């Protein structure tokens, strides 16, 4: 079982959700965040001065999925969230040991 953490552009959220839905992956948790990558944000030019926009708004999608579909999810997100420009985001895959469904109390090592 994997946790997929995708940090994407906020304006790409709708597209990503749609693509994932088509793959039958609907369960997710979404958080607002601020972030920057190796480019250190964006640099704007003002009359000869350059101003760093330190961090930019991002959306973090967290999905816990079975090992088998992790790759498909990653590819779906990557495809939908890409613009090809700096700031498109990153996806991280973390191991999950167990998942519990609160409604029923079910516990499982290879949900969800």
């Amino acid at each position: 079982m994997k946790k997929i953490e995708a940090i994407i552009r906020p304006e790409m959220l709708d597209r990503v959700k749609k693509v994932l839905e088509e793959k039958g992956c609907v369960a997710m948790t979404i958080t607002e965040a601020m972030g920057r990558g190796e480019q250190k944000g964006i640099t704007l030019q003002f009359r000869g001065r350059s101003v760093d926009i330190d961090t930019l708004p991002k959306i973090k999608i967290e999905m816990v999925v079975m090992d088998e579909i992790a790759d498909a999810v990653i590819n779906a997100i990557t495809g939908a969230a890409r613009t090809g420009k700096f700031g498109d985001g990153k996806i991280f895959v973390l191991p999950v040991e167990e998942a519990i469904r609160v409604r029923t109390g079910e516990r499982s090592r290879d949900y969800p």
Partner: protein
Amino acid sequence: MLDSGDTAWVLASTALVVLMTPGVGLFYAGMVRGKNVVSMIALSFVALVLVSVQWVLVGYSLAFSSDIAGFVGNLGFFGLNGVGMGCGDSTIPELAFMAFQLAFAVITLAILTSAMAERVKISGFIVFGLLWTTLVYDPLAHWVWGGGWLAQLGALDFAGGTVVHICSGFSALAVVLVIGKRRGFGEQQMGPHNIPMTLLGVALLWFGWFGFNGGSALAANGLAANAFVVTNTSAAAGAIGWMAASWNHGQQSSLGMVSGAVAGLVAITPAAGFVGPMSALVIGAVAGVICYKAMLFRIKKDFDESLDAWAIHGVGGLWGAIATGIFATAAVGGYTGLIYGNVGQFIAQIIGAVAAIAYAFVITLILAKLVDATIGLRVTEEEEYVGLDISQHGEEAYA
């Protein structure tokens, strides 16, 4: 001779109309994304600041001093030369009248910022705004209220349906043609970031509009009371009209309701001193429906005039101008409209509206292109992406 009651009412009304300009700012700012909030409110303040100075220097003179060829005033009142604390043959001080008119010039530019939402360069707006208020608003105000050719023709505009609303609404359309859509328009969600802010803006607009229309009687009398009442009635009817027209689209959005109210307020503006409350019910309700349809049309045409200055102020103002020619009754303002058989008034209204549309649209198009070609009207792609608050103002709305 000075009448203190009339003066009290016009001064109070002027304060109300000035408040409407930040009201427009809040109204608009609630509807944009969180990265352009400061910008949207600031644009209204910039309009207030710029036109306040322009008007006392030249604007008032261009609009209200002696007529040149029916088209514009001369510079007789340059720097408020000769505009003083006395009343002339009015009952209010000349300066009070000047201030009241100033507030109208201010808000007209503020309404127009709709068309530039989330993409205008602040320096470009400053230059454009000064040109626009001088070359579009001031002559139009002169045509209708300053003794210009439309006044001579007999076109009626009690409180600015043509001068303010048609003018800003159709100018907005022209600006959009030049400045273009926001990046991502139609693809990404660009919904309102703070609806309570928009509703607060409408509250201030509704409140201020009592001064806008009521004050246009330039006296605290029965005519002012009539204007006051029809304003409120038309606003309510407009809300109901819009709600009814959009009903089958599911739940009732609050933005729809208040958009309808603003449509009703716009439409009654030219008519407020010429029609009674029952006509106001009709004018408002029809405005709610028509402006809603205009918005749908605007969406279908894929125009990114998304705060709908055109659909609400432009189309609502047009309908109001025509409605004045239909419903005017001698009992209120001494003029009659189509329903009393006065075809002439009806035609005068249409001429006035069409002329204003044509003038505002064409000159605005030229000015916008001019500014865009020189100092630029639009921010760069990256500035737009990070938002105008950061890129134009170096500020973030919320921490």
